[in-house]
């Protein structure tokens, strides 16, 4: 099994290669490559991130601890995204549809991922004791923090439903049209609320990992919001900058989860005789 540092380097290098590939293809107008190949390969980051993330989650007790649960849910979220992408690839490459069906079986992956990201965010907030800290917060901070979800929902609904027309939509479509942005707003709101706690992480070796995860939540929210914005405006293209945003979001989530990994195995950590050097 690869040790954590090597897993992180692998994910980072793969992300950089995929970002550079996108930039070069875009600069040289390789539209065929971006639309036919790139769209179907960058999900490999989510696949690797999800599998490696489950290994890291296990080091923290898996579903037996708050942090283990958070990392497990986020890793499964990444894997569900891959499932959604694979189902869409099946529609495009095997069934050869001209327009992707919506809703389709791909929603099991994509909407499932939103639910799992929300659960991951909730358990991350439990790990850093967000609720107890809210009780001790001053009135000013409480007011500011309560404005965050209102602002997030306002932005989301302006982007999503500015030109919303449910005529001809099925009940399942309407439910999903509302459920996606609400779910995404929830995990983005928790991420921003957790950011209020980040100063209390000073001195902790895992501060950087928490902040990277928060960044990944925000990137995921931006990617999804941009997707809907471009889709409604009719200018979404496969392999476009929207896919680059998704790649950045997957990379940040995968690297964020991986940043909680130990430099070596748990056994080696336990065998250390020097306090303070267990996790670096």
């Amino acid at each position, binding site marked *: 099994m690869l040790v954590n540092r090597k897993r992180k380097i692998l994910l980072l290098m793969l992300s950089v290669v995929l970002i550079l590939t996108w930039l070069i293809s875009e600069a040289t107008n390789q539209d065929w490559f971006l639309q036919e190949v790139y769209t179907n390969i960058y999900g490999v980051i989510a696949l690797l991130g999800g599998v490696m993330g489950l290994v890291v989650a296990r*080091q*923290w*007790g*898996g579903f*037996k*601890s*708050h*942090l*283990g649960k958070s990392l497990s849910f986020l890793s499964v979220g990444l894997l569900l995204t891959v499932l959604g992408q694979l189902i869409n690839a099946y529609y495009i490459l095997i069934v050869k549809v001209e327009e992707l069906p919506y809703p389709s079986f791909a929603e099991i992956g994509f909407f499932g991922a939103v639910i799992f990201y929300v659960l991951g965010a909730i358990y991350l907030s*439990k*790990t*850093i*004791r967000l609720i*107890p*800290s809210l009780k001790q917060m001053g009135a000013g901070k409480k007011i500011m923090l309560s404005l965050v979800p209102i602002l997030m929902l306002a932005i989301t609904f302006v982007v999503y439903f500015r030109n919303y027309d449910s005529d001809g939509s099925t009940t399942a479509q309407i439910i999903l049209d509302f459920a996606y942005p609400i779910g995404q707003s929830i995990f983005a709101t928790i991420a921003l609320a957790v950011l209020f*706690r980040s100063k*209390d*992480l*000073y*001195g*902790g*070796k*895992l*501060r950087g990992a*928490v902040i990277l995860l928060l960044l990944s939540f925000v990137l995921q929210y931006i990617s999804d919001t941009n997707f809907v914005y471009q889709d409604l405006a009719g200018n979404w293209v496969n392999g476009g900058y929207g896919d680059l945003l998704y790649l950045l979001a997957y990379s940040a989530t995968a690297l964020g989860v991986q940043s909680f990994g130990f430099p070596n195995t*748990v056994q080696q*950590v*336990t065998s*250390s*005789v*020097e*306090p*303070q050097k*267990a*996790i670096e």
Partner: protein
Amino acid sequence: MIEDYAKIVVAIVKEQETVIGPVAIDQARLVPGLTLDWEKKEATLKQDPKQTVDKLVEQYKSLFGQISVEVCKEAVGRLAGQLSPEQLPASLR
């Protein structure tokens, strides 16, 4: 008196275990002067017990900073009330 500190240690490790899983026990075992028999949920303190508790809190602090200290304080809760302010480890005040 030393039993009170042992109870404090067990309470802290238990609470940390709900947050960070088995790493809580691994971290506690890195503290000099502290021995854990976690199957029996027992702790043995060999050196200055007050200082050992401080070292344990410091060990957790190295992971999540002040947030880890808050988890420790919350875990101790009622047990802390049984000690005088002088007996209470500085990290839990």
